[in-house]
């Protein structure tokens, strides 16, 4: 094909201002998520290049596709997309003969690629890309009763085949899913979710050492950090609550339709499952080297080194009963510093426990 003499697109100067080289002087900023990069890094021309390499086959594989739909699929504004299309159209090899490898138009809001040369297929999956999908899929396959196992294993096999060598390192990353006692509960919960039924739970609350009874209207089954949770509207608390499946002592699916209030707010799983609220009590605990696990186990707001392995931890909680139990567990490896009344309470707890030993 000869060098560009024609314009590719819409009647009113398809390229916007004529002269491909001037089109869209400002490159579209890469949209987070459309290009492969680790968090926090700035957008680069490499990322835009990845997008451009995907754009041609995206259109080719669909024969023709709308500007608006494509912009949505790529997370771009239509203006940014048009800028990308213009850039692709402008590609020109000058030697030995001038040659324009890509020809396309977006007249009337529909993109058609009439010439894609050797760019009609997407680039192979990189190791990181193949790994991200394969590790996630294998994790899903590990969740009992959670997904269509047959679809998962077929998809894993297809992706492994398509990724080829790039699939190799994914075997070195794994996310294990806890499944000690939750299997039966998962089956019941899926059943309740599908049939939109209320469930009755006997649920263990370790922080209070209580086996509680409650009716819950299931909303979602969450699997976060390898642990499964039932998210539901707790009729006792009249709020959205999370129930860890391994703490469900027993579950019955009731013959009552679930009634989740319209305004029930699902937990934003990407913000962390447990967030402190303004009403929480601020607790300060100091732990020895042997008690440092506390900082790993509980969501802490602050951790300050005190020397000799000791750590001062700050955390907020709506209910301090579990802190009392934690303090008894830590013994001399921990000391609650604040609040003062909690500290006094813990001394009473220990004194009462020792008294029980003295009398029996």
């Amino acid at each position, binding site marked *: 094909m000869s060098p560009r003499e024609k314009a590719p697109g819409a009647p009113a100067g398809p390229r916007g201002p004529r002269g491909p080289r001037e089109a869209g002087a400002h490159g579209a900023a890469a949209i987070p998520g459309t290009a492969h990069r680790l968090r926090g890094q*700035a957008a680069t021309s490499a990322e835009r290049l990845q997008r451009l390499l995907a754009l041609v086959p995206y259109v080719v594989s669909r024969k023709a596709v709308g500007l608006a739909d494509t912009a949505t699929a790529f997370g771009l504004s239509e203006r940014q997309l048009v800028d990308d299309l213009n850039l692709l159209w402008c590609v020109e090899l000058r030697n030995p003969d001038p040659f324009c490898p890509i020809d396309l138009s977006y007249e009337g809001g529909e993109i058609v690629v009439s010439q894609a040369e050797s*760019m009609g297929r997407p*680039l192979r999956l*990189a190791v990181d890309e193949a790994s991200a999908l394969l590790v996630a899929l294998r994790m899903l396959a590990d969740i009992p009763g959670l*997904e269509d196992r047959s*679809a998962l294993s077929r*998809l894993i096999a297809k992706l492994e085949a398509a990724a080829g060598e790039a699939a190799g390192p994914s075997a070195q990353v794994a996310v294990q899913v806890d499944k000690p006692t939750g299997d039966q509960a998962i089956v019941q919960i899926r059943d309740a*979710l599908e049939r939109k039924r209320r469930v009755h739970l006997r649920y263990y609350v370790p922080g209070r050492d209580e086996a509680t009874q409650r009716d819950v209207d299931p909303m979602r089954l969450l699997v976060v*950090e390898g642990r499964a949770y039932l998210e539901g509207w707790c009729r006792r608390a009249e709020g959205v609550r999370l129930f860890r499946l391994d703490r469900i002592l027993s579950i019955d699916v009731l013959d009552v339709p679930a009634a989740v209030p319209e305004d029930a707010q699902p937990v934003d799983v990407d913000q962390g499952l447990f967030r402190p609220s303004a009403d929480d009590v601020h607790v300060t605990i100091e732990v020895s080297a042997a008690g440092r696990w506390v900082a790993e186990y509980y969501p802490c707001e602050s951790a300050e080194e005190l020397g000799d392995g000791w750590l001062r931890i700050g955390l907020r909680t709506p209910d301090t009963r579990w802190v009392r139990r934690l303090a008894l567990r830590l013994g001399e490896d921990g000391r609650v510093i604040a609040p003062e009344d909690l500290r006094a309470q813990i001394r009473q707890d220990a004194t009462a426990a020792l008294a029980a030993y003295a009398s029996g």
Partner: protein
Amino acid sequence: MSRRKTERLLSLVVCLLSTRRYLTAEQIRRAVAGYPEQPEAFKRMFERDKEELRELGVPLETGSLSPLDGEDIGYRVQQQAYELPELRLEADEAAVLGLAARVWQHAELAGAAAGALLKLRAAGIDPDDGDAGAGAGARQGIEPRVHTTEPAFGPLWEAVRDRRPVTFAYRAAGRSEPQLRELEPWGVVNRHGRWYVAGRDRGRDAVRVFRLGRIEGDVRFSGPPGTVTVPAGTDVREVVRTWDSVPPRENTAVLRVRPGAGYGLRRYATSPPDADSSPARSVPSDSVRSDSASPDSARAGSARAGSAQAGWDTITVPYSDVGWFADHVASFGADVVVIDPPHLRDAVISRLKGVLA
């Protein structure tokens, strides 16, 4: 970011893809717009561009132009090595693909997952990626997520991927100071929501597992890519599982538990099972120790003796490690009292005294 550079790199990819023969650097300079005339400047820019393409995963091949002329090297990209092979997905497969991509949302591999989806879309696949909660997972009420809050995840994954040894400062459990470790990393595993790295510890010449949350400061590469060999047949999941597994519960404790309390222990009791969950329920006789008491007989016995613990249940619970179990029992305070064995009883009393120390 530079539009001109994007254009140049794009032209370079097309140029290398459209040739069957190897092209010399000079041929490439003449074909691709945007390279400087000046040879040194061109060489520098061309080197950087090649590096960028390789980082993107473009399989850039280097070869000699003719067998007789070994000096003049050329470049090309083979279509077959470049292209994602044909891939057709059924509707149910595309649905779980979207769910899988969401697993990493906001975690370290989120960008990689999005990059993969981009390419699969480009291959004509329409993953159900559940925007605005319309995805398959959301419809079925399922939301799986993995987080990578540990800063060490990124560099360790790179090290595993590229087979490079690393060094880092590590504070082992119970240690007051971190120690410098050098590791040949074999894999990273998430277990109970925490990330671990397993590999050969060079300093100790032994297999070790490290928790990423206990790594302090930066992870540094201590060798070039390709210098770590993972022994054949290694299953990193198994290595971490073995390291993290709870020893068998071979010991038995007899505990007295206040009614309505101690559920965290009752759950694991061998006799009577789940004693107080439904007091009216009959307890199978074979699970009741003959020398101990079922809840009913304990109550009866205590009542007869007029003990201060009237109504308390006596349960038998298996455990593995005295230290850990003593901590656990102590956390129940005055609701649970160890009857036997004596060293467990002493350990709990010592914890409780420690609180008052």
